[in-house]
């Protein structure tokens, strides 16, 4: 029998996704502990997640600086000692600042946890932000900022965020002088208010047996108590700018950075899963319309994509690319053309079927290990939705119609409301 290489083999669409749900323990001190126990490797990832404090325009960098400097010293340990003790036991300590929450993350082999956990407790409960370390931090950040500001894509993103979100944590693009507003006393006060049990969610994933749960409870349980002043985590409303077009000229640019988009609904909205399908069609995967047209047909760029962000105070849809400086205007026209097509023509059955399967496969593939299951949980937990969200998501991906997507495009993708930022030549 000759092999038929022209015809694709039979395949099965992905029907079901099964997610590991956490065990939830409310600790005596008010913090929430979520446990994901699965996997063969004797290791864990522990995340301590805190909501950022209210944005203060006069001291815009407090949230990010306090988080970044948690590794820089406590009453009993210098920055060096912290690094030594984690590294010696093969651990990985990360601090991650995000728009809504900031976190401290430890990756550790289970057998070393009795040695690594006390260091974590120390930095989360007793950081002191030594002045010499703060001076070093400020100087190094200011130097790095100068390099970042020469990258067109970064400049475009900063401008875009400022336009969409105004004077908030989301709109913040630190400038050189902002670093001068950082003072140790403010950081200590910020730290005390933010990094306290009542503002803390702990997520543990890995091979988590009772010994490990007990270790965490004994370190972060009853003897870690909340501050009398509750963390003020209410953020100001977003204030989008009136001006929708921004062009920052770079006469020597070989490529221009393009960033376009508009405020959008968030994960809590019932339309969100269908919007994710629409976004995938437009620019959410390698075979997307933007990639097919602007990269694979025209060769204007190495890459182009679109995305949805869903944050506490609001969401956005955005399109980003770096394109040849001489074809920037053409690229923008093609992007707008693709959006218009989504609003005027039904997505062909064949393409929609492909996108459905791709998205289901991608969801399945994103559940690589127990850490990914914890990540899926965080997505919904911090968006204020529950596991039904994923059922709704898979239902919509499998069943949304081309007509519904056309309506959705008309409802949400108003080209007149798009913000457009160009850095380079136009």
């Amino acid at each position: 029998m000759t092999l038929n290489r022209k015809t694709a083999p039979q395949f099965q669409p992905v029907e079901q996704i099964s997610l590991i749900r956490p065990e939830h323990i409310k600790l005596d001190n008010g913090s929430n502990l979520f446990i994901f126990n699965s996997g063969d490797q004797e290791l864990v990832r522990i995340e301590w997640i805190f909501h950022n404090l209210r944005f203060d325009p006069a001291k815009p960098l407090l949230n990010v600086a306090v988080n970044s400097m948690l590794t820089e010293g406590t009453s009993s340990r210098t920055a060096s000692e912290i690094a030594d003790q984690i590294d010696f036991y093969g651990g990985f300590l990360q601090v991650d600042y995000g728009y809504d929450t900031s976190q401290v993350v430890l990756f550790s082999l289970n057998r070393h946890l009795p040695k690594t956990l006390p260091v974590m407790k120390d930095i989360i409960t007793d950081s002191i932000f030594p002045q010499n370390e703060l001076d070093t931090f400020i100087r190094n950040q200011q130097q790095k900022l100068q390099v970042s500001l020469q990258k067109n894509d970064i400049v475009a993103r900063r401008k875009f965020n400022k336009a969409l979100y105004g004077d908030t944590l989301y709109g913040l693009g630190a400038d050189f002088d902002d670093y001068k507003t950082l003072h140790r006393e403010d950081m200590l006060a910020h730290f005390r208010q933010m990094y306290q049990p009542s503002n803390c969610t702990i997520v543990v994933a890995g091979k988590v047996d009772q010994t490990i749960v007990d270790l965490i409870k004994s370190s972060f349980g009853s003897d870690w108590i909340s501050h009398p002043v509750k963390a003020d985590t209410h953020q100001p409303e977003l204030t989008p700018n009136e001006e929708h077009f921004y062009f920052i000229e770079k006469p020597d640019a070989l490529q221009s950075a393009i960033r376009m988009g508009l405020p959008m609904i968030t994960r809590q909205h019932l339309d969100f899963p269908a919007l994710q399908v629409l976004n995938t069609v437009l620019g959410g995967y390698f075979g997307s319309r933007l990639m097919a047209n602007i990269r694979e047909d025209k060769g204007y760029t190495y890459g182009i994509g679109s995305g949805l962000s869903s944050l506490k105070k609001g969401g956005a849809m955005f399109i980003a690319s770096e394109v040849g400086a001489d074809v920037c205007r053409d690229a923008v026209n093609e992007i707008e053309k693709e959006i218009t097509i989504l609003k005027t023509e039904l997505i062909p059955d064949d393409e929609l079927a492909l996108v459905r399967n791709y998205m289901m496969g991608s969801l399945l593939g994103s559940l690589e290990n127990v850490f990914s299951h914890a990540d899926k949980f965080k997505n919904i937990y911090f968006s204020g939705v529950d596991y039904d969200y994923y059922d709704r998501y898979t239902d919509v991906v499998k069943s949304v119609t081309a007509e519904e997507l056309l309506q959705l495009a008309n409802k949400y993708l108003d080209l007149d409301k798009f913000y457009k930022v160009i850095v380079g030549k136009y």
Partner: protein
Amino acid sequence: MLSVFRYYMVKFNRFILANGLRVIVHEDHTTPMAVLNILYDVGARDEDPEKTGFAHLFEHLMFGGSVNIPQYDEPLQRVGGENNAFTTNDITNYYITLPAENIETAFWLESDRMLNLAFSEKSLEVQRNVVIEEFKQRYLNQPYGDVWLKLRPMVYKKHPYRWATIGKEVKHIEDARIEDVKAFFKQHYNPQNAIMVVGGNISIERAKELAEKWFGPIPAGEKYHRELPKEPMQTEARRETTSAKVPLNDLYIAFHMPGRLEAGYYELDLVSDILSRGNSSRLYRNLVKDKQLFSEIHAYNMGSFDSGMFVVEGKPIEGVSIETAEAAIWEELEKIKTEPVPDNELTKVKNKTESTMVFSEMSLLDKAMNLATFELFGDADMLNHETEKYLAITEQQIQEQAQQVFRKENSSTLVYLAESH
């Protein structure tokens, strides 16, 4: 010694098809996914010095349709799969992840493009443009982006590592012709020059059956015999100064070191950890924190298969002269040459290496790629002995290797100055 010895085991089976294709199967039934990874034994080092960037351009063309399948990505996405590829100076690696029940689609797609490509002029024209935009995005339109275009030819005078995978210049990409593409395919893309790893929720029997079915009929092709010029021993210090519209000065010192499979490689890999891995490392602690000479500094080993490269790179604080910065780096290098690494510090970097290996077992794709690479080195099972090799290293061996490598006459120093503006 703190580490308790543990035998890391990524289990696998191996078979070879009659046409020479080496196949590794790693069963992992904890995941609903499968991976198909194909490593082709060709990289930028195999290019004609007048046609550089070709291996990487070719990688792009592998997505432009094959002899029986006009569209590569579309049928894969249709079954819920994702793919990508990368080219290095040494190899070209293609990978697919997809729901395990649809693994046959991956076999179908990969076997057809190993059989023959469509060689479309349109695809060549578009991908030339895409790669030129990639060249601009990564190397020309970024602050310090052209460092590797300058540093490689300083370090390597004869070996093809003297150019970057993107190529020496944009013109080489513009000049690529369809005849070149066909010749390159014939020379490098056949079963004898490839290693396939199938991983995930699939049985060895099924993997064998599918490999025979789809890859078995592909002609063996000719085995490519690599004969690269050997890089002559460097005998005097090299130094260049360049300037550009960047905000800060930048300093690079590069050294020749053993290749991936040569004696001394593992020692120097640990040296790079001692110098630069994490906030407890020497360069960060001494030069960024204590002496406040750099805003950032890194030391790394390029992991090259042939003659290797060890790089120390740092951006001095404004107001710190290049001479001072350079002297401070050399002081640290001298220290590691003359003073034994304390036990605690050596244990620390070994523990870090060990835990990195355990964490890498969490990723199916990482395991598949690692198996392919070690099979290329001679035996996929070498992956399971990596940690042992690091753990066995002594402080004397570290010192000996540091003395061999960190010599002025083995160094190439590139001073990248900020033009005042």
